[in-house]
């Protein structure tokens, strides 16, 4: 019990510190294994289709990640309020996926906005894998 608390504490302190995309992927891998014992790794291809796939939103519109981030994540996107979103792909924006709390904040918001549910660790990992792999 105490050990698991310490582990939790460690995870939290790691969340506050700057991270690398690889470290984040490791964290999501641990979660994904807990969510699904048959987990077999992250896939950039799955992440790419996740990024583009449009969902019929309950408001009647069709939305995807690319609605705001554009079809090419190496480009700047735009919010609905006309504000520029810096590129998601790490090749164009090395700041991406270096702050675990920020990453969780935006997955938390945007998964609910686009999918109307939380994302799984598998989906988050696939997504990051895709954006890290883009050249």
């Amino acid at each position: 019990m105490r050990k698991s608390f310490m582990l939790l504490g460690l995870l939290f302190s790691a969340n506050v510190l700057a991270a690398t995309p690889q470290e984040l992927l490791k964290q999501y891998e641990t979660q994904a294994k807990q969510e699904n014992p048959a987990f077999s790794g992250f896939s950039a291809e799955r992440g790419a289709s996740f990024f583009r796939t449009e969902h019929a939103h309950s408001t009647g519109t069709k939305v995807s990640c690319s609605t705001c981030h554009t079809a090419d994540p190496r480009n700047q996107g735009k919010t609905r309020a006309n504000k520029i979103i810096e590129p998601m792909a790490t090749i164009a924006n090395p700041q991406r996926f270096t702050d675990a709390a920020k990453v969780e904040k935006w997955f938390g918001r945007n998964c609910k906005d686009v999918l109307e549910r939380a994302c799984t660790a598998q989906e988050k990992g696939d997504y990051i894998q895709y954006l890290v792999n883009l050249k």
Partner: protein
Amino acid sequence: MKKWMQFLVLISSITSTSALLASGGIEGGGGNNMSPVTNAKWKAECSSCHMLYHPGLLPERSWNKLMSGLDKHFGENASLDAATRDEITNFLVTNSAEKSTNRRSNRINQSIPASATPLRISETRYFTSKHDEVSPSTFKRKSIGSAANCIACHQSAEKGDFSESQVRIPR
């Protein structure tokens, strides 16, 4: 303030009220521009999706309502952790329209009926009367987007400066 200075202020405010109104210059006691208040979390969190709205643009009750519904923020999920949300709410409430001494905040506040709690600044009577010469199609221009994007025409909007002399409507 010295007597003669008070007199000068009085005279100038009487004689040039309309000119100052048009230019958005400083009038009487509090100026037209909102005070340059700031908070790091407000700046970081409230400007990632939209321009940074000055707390003096809405009354306390509006900020409270807005900040307690961030999971449905104008159709988007803008949830914050509780500590960040409370800090920002406190900042907005402390510097809200009815607590500001500048003319614009006072007028915005006075234009809102006591029974109303608007979430959109563009819904206040002050806003609509100030923008009645701007057509809906102008607001919809690609360079502007909507009436929510103050900064498209008011370059110093994020500093709480909406002086008419600085307005430049993009094509």
